[in-house]
């Protein structure tokens, strides 16, 4: 949990919350504020939006560090979260880093998850996540790392055929996972935190983050049939 080597007093992470359920937005804000009460303000809510078009407007205006993004949203061209991400391409924060997206969804359907990831989200967590883990996830995404829930790791292992034993010969191969990436994904699917993964594999947390980011890149760029088929289902390709 506290694996991040945070500087003394980091500027709070500016967060925009996009979800079409007002009750859920209120709930997340309250929970996060409560969770952060002890350890100082890690995040600061700078805006929220209930649909695709107002979300794009708010994000362009506020240029937050992280956008918590629901997968299913009204408006836009009907692709929910994916439309918001595509509508915000090139938007940068005051410090020059791109705005990053963390998908937050109740849906466990593979095509939904893969669709927002391929649209450019840096991670995916389910709405049942507890507040402490959510804060960690937000911090991780704002640092440019990827956030994988156990379920997303399971999808990845399935989609890349890694569970069936397909392993990349070279690490750069986009359509398969390397042996190490497979190991990392398997441990995440087993419910291990990054820190625990690092300990289990005798590598540093930074290396784990590198592997996860590399898997995220493959997930976004690979033309593997399973992935394109899922994306096709959501009219993404």
């Amino acid at each position, binding site marked *: 949990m506290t694996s991040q080597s945070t500087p003394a007093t980091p500027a709070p992470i500016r967060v925009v919350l996009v979800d079409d359920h007002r009750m859920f937005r209120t709930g997340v804000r309250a929970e996060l504020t409560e969770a952060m009460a002890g350890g100082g303000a890690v995040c600061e809510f700078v805006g929220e939006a209930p649909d695709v078009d107002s979300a794009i407007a708010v994000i362009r205006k506020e240029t937050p560090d992280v956008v918590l993004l629901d997968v299913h949203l009204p408006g836009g061209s009907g692709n929910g979260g994916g439309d918001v991400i595509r509508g915000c391409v090139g938007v940068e924060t005051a410090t020059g880093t791109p705005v990053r997206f963390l998908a937050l969804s109740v849906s466990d359907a593979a095509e939904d998850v893969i669709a927002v990831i391929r649209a450019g989200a840096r991670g995916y967590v389910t709405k049942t996540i507890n507040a402490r883990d959510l804060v960690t996830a937000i911090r991780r995404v704002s640092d440019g790392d990827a956030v994988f829930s156990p379920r997303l790791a399971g999808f990845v292992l399935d989609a890349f055929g890694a*569970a069936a*034993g397909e392993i990349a010969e070279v690490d750069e191969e986009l359509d398969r996972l390397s042996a190490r990436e497979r190991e990392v994904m398997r441990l995440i699917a*087993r419910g291990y935190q990054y820190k625990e993964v690092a300990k289990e594999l005798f590598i540093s947390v930074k290396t784990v983050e590198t592997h996860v980011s590399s898997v995220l890149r493959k997930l976004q760029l690979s033309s593997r049939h399973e992935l394109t088929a899922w994306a096709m289902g959501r009219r993404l390709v």
Partner: protein
Amino acid sequence: MRVAFVVLALSGGAGVAAYLFLWAMTPEGQVDGSGPLTATTWSERRRWSVLLAAGAVLVIAGIALLVPGVGVSARGSVLIPVFVIAVGAVVAWSNLDQTQRSRWLTGGRDGMGWVRVALGTVLAIVGILVLVTRGSSVSVLWDAVLAAFAVLAGALILAAPWAVRLWGDLRREQVAAARATERADIAAHLHDSVLQTLALIQRQSADPAAVTRLARAQERELRTWLYDGPQGSQSSLAAAVTEVAHEVEDLHGVPVDLVVTGDRPFEQHGAALSRAMREALLNAVRHGSPPVTAYVEIGPGGVEAFVRDRGAGFDIDTVPEDRLGVRQSVLGRMQRHGGSARIRQREDGTEVELRLPPIEGEES
């Protein structure tokens, strides 16, 4: 229609057979569109038995007509064409059931259907010709052919718009009925599940544990219904372990985060694994603390299952009885089925690993 058959029946008994045959072959119950599905499958079976009976009657009638030689020369010239017409009509009409009609309308073409209709039409025409031109010359026959074609073409032209409109109406009705049924299904399902659970939650709002359990169970049920389609638990290992995890969740109200990749048919070794996993999960929710996570990987190299909790862990020596139970039901069971089990005490919880070799003959 029936009168015609009665008349036919008087003239040689063949009409009875023809009536039965036609009754059996003509698609039924499709006009009203709302007929229960079970009825059609039942009538399908009934139709076959009737067909057999009709065939038998036909054979007997044929023998009765031919063998004693009673009036074969006199009646054959009338009966045979009539038979040919009847058979042609039956073959053509029996195919014009509703599903095919709608398929034609939507543009799909069923080759066999067309062939049968064409065959039926040709048979009917030939039958009519033979009946009409009995004992006439070739030139008269030619005129009759033209006349028959003209009449058929005329009838077709007259009937076509009406028929097309009728088919269109039928299709619209069908779609509307399907929509209404689906809506009713959804409403019924929501009523039986979500609304009931919400009522329960309101009543038990003072008990957070009960509310969590109810909400979790309902969420899972709804999710299964939405994403997994209508099929229930089938005979696959993935379905079995999912069921086990849900059962444990329901029993103790502790959420279990289960991730499954791959799948394989459910057999006795898989059954042993899912039972051992149930024990491990029960142990985790009883002695550990949430979150309890489980991961099952089913691949060509075998099955691996991991159950993990975040409890402080518990000392093997302090609870020997319970551990012994776990050893028996988890370790012993896996070994009996050619697999293995390992219990790892970690500083922040316990992890149980279960392994099974691949199903014989499927090793890669």
